[in-house]
């Protein structure tokens, strides 16, 4: 039901239809790097169309199974479907965009 409304709005306004989840474990160098990279990429290419949820598995380990998380950090594209996962510190912008299936904004 949710996706239905999302797809409808997609054609009109492409606002906030990227629902992203970043799984990390504590404030490690890798997780900080991943978050910083993600923030930068989203601001550049998906400005105003995304929502990022950070899940720290150190605090909520029970959430790891739900999204089949193994590697950390993992970025999960919950919406739009299908679910996509990108593992690593997201340092390669090009691949992140491929992974998220986002057309890069040419500057």
């Amino acid at each position, binding site marked *: 039901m949710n996706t239905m409304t999302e797809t409808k709005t997609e054609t009109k306004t492409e606002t906030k239809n990227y629902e992203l989840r970043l799984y990390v474990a504590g404030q490690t160098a890798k997780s900080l790097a991943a978050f910083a990279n993600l923030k930068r990429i989203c601001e550049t290419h998906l400005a105003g169309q995304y929502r990022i949820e950070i899940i720290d*598995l150190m605090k909520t*380990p029970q959430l790891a199974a739900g999204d089949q*998380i*193994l*590697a950390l*950090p993992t970025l999960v594209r919950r919406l739009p479907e299908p679910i996509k996962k990108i*593992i*690593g510190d997201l*340092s390669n912008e090009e*691949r992140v965009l491929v992974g998220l299936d986002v057309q890069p904004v040419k500057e």
Partner: protein
Amino acid sequence: MKNKLDLLATPGLSKSRTGITGLDEITGGGLPTGRPTLVCGSAGCGKTMLAVEFLVRGAVEFGEPGVFMMFEENAAELTANVRSLGFDLDKLVKQKKVLLDHVHIERSEIEETGEYDLEGLFIRLGHAIDSIGAKRVVLDTVEALFAGLPNHAILRAELRRLFRWLKDRGMTAIITGEKGDGNAITRYGLEEYVADCVVTLDHRVHEQISTRRLRVLKYRGSAHGTNEYPFLIGERGISVLPITSLRLDHAAPAERLSTGIARLDQMLGGQGVFRGSSVLVSGSPGTGKSSLGATFADAACRRGERALLFAYEESSAQIVRNMRSIGIDLAQWVKKGLLQIHASRPTLQGLEQHLVALHDTVQAFRPAVVVVDPISNLTLEHSETEVMPTLMRLIDFLKQQQITSLFTSLTTGGSGTRAPEDSQVGVSSLMDTWLLLRNVEFNGERNRLIYVLKSRGMAHSNQVREFVLSDAGIDLVDVYLGADRVLTGTARVAQAAHERSAAELRREDHERKLRQLASKRKVIEAQIAALNAEGEAEEAEVKFAIAQETLQEKTTQQNSADMAHLRGGSKASNGQPKGKR
């Protein structure tokens, strides 16, 4: 505190029992506690089954909850698959004794960018362990990660860390791995990381009969059986067939058991066989092996003991009917619950499977006597080198339980070059007592002979007896030794009759002699009487003559005295006339 001391006191490693029949014996008490064990083998050889049983038995029997982390099947599939083994994972999950976690990784969904580690897996596993207080962990099959994650360098480093981490957390773990090509133990070289204990499983087909085998390849810091052991996945989970063959230390009771045939007991040192010993009865077809086995079982039931009869040739109803013809009523024991007959076709399954079935039944029924009729059928498709160890295991197992066993065996030799006893030489060395039944053809008929070829620990008879089956059961009869052969059957009866008539003749002869003697004595006595009479007559005559003579003399004296008197002789007158004067 006390437990801790106990643990320290046990020499070597502390071990966690798997509860899997046989595996604990091979490993000398189980898998290494707090360490990972690698179980590897090709597809479909039972790795997952072994892992599940390890976990379930740990949770149910040893109070050690476990986490099953699966990378291939999902929880529902696994639960369905192991239900056939009698494991109810749903229930255990509800009781929080087992936790199932399906780790699914789809390569197509994953994009890799930059540095990462598998901390997520650690967190999941750690959370799972903490939530049920697990002591055991199974990772099945962690190698699936190699297909899901492109960066093998990171994966390898992380796996190494994972196994280290499992050790640090004190988890007794089973890691399964697919067998690699060629000589590689696992496809991705997991043995490099899990080096404490490695168990390999194998599934082989030989002459259309499949056998699963298990081998403990390595067990750091512990002695273990190094052989390949056949194992089975049965209704009660996995059974490895070792089962006690690592040691030869069973007790040897001095108690003796009757075989049910008094004359046979007599041949066996007068008291029958030892309790807990093994008896082999071999013979050509129709020599009465089955009857002997049934008598043995019947005798046990008569003593009030339990007997178990495994039949591989006849159905149980057929056995009951046929034994009735020699006066053995097995039905009554079956009804009383003292006797169980298990009949099955030997070709139904492989030798190992039969032996495991035998094991399970023995353990469930706890009999005092086991009869297997015949073992030769079980061993048909197998070479002796294969059969020997398996039978040895069975016999050792029975001896350990102090169960007296009787095996019948069909001899195949006997025609020309080979003596019938030769065909059983391999198996016979496992047996304490070996009886041979043999058909002897002579005088236009076949008769059965029984020999005691060997019987350990007792003075057994070296005599050959005739084995007679009648409606009153089995009996042994002395054979007659003819001029140069033993006489049996009608020849024996004829000989007996002959001897009987000879004895009769002798007896009559004696009587005649006695009679003759008696009459002779009578004659002599008559003669004596006659002589006595003659003597008496002579005596009387002599006496008469003497009397006559005395009388004559007297008369003569009288006469001469008278004459002298008359003549007035001086001599005579000296006296008489004086007197008269």
